[in-house]
């Protein structure tokens, strides 16, 4: 069997599987966490308006030591909210300023929330945040649309050019 064909087939199958895969929201550890009113442990996705700040809260059975929220976008990740807890607080709340990340546009984002407890244990959870709005009105969305249309036209042109050159 042609090894190159087999390799291409395997890569294609792996790419399709990874392309369509999607993580479910989970919360590990004895804590509870909420974002925009949605529980990390039970809700997979929460919708928010574009540019809005998202209220969040963490609570644990014992005192908290530190907390962090991380927004993921491909290889890029940002920490819109993090800090340490000085007193014996067992809960903490605040707001994620999503307007700072408006340049990313609309759509679905993976948000990871984690807390470290005073006894050294930790909790971590992930939830998908759907930022509502018009994708083509953002720089990222408009650029993606232009790249998709341009590359499609380029692929068709290169495909047809080869045939036309042979026919000449």
């Amino acid at each position, binding site marked *: 069997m042609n090894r190159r064909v087999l390799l291409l087939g395997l890569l294609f199958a792996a*790419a399709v599987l990874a392309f369509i895969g999607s993580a479910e929201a989970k919360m590990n550890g004895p804590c509870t966490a909420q974002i925009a009113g949605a529980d990390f442990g039970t809700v997979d996705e929460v919708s928010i308006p574009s540019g809005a700040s998202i209220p969040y809260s963490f609570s644990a059975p014992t005192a908290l030591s530190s907390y962090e929220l991380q927004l*993921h976008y*491909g290889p890029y990740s940002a920490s819109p909210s993090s800090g340490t807890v000085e007193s014996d607080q067992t809960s903490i709340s605040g707001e994620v300023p999503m307007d700072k990340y408006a340049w990313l546009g*609309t759509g679905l984002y993976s948000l990871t929330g984690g807390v470290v407890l005073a006894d050294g244990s930790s909790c971590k959870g992930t939830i998908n945040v759907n930022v509502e709005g018009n*994708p083509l009105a953002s720089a990222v969305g408009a650029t993606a649309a232009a790249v998709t249309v341009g590359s499609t036209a*380029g692929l068709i042109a290169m495909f047809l050019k*080869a045939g036309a050159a*042979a026919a000449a």
Partner: protein
Amino acid sequence: MADSAAASGWKWVFKPGMIVLGALFALGVLVLLQQYGVTTFTTGKLGAALVFGAILGVVLGSAGARRTRPAARAEASQ
């Protein structure tokens, strides 16, 4: 299989231009899917999209090159 592929006029062609365009196409589609709320944009999906696009470029490049080969065109016209 390689013999049957050659007999049918098919030959794998790796054109850098087609591979880059295929990867750009898949990247654009992935970002659009993310922007429309269909899927998240993760590092794994970025890699998968680039691999998917590169394979698409190879397949389209090979199909385009097949049209240029006289033997393949003659066989197709029969």
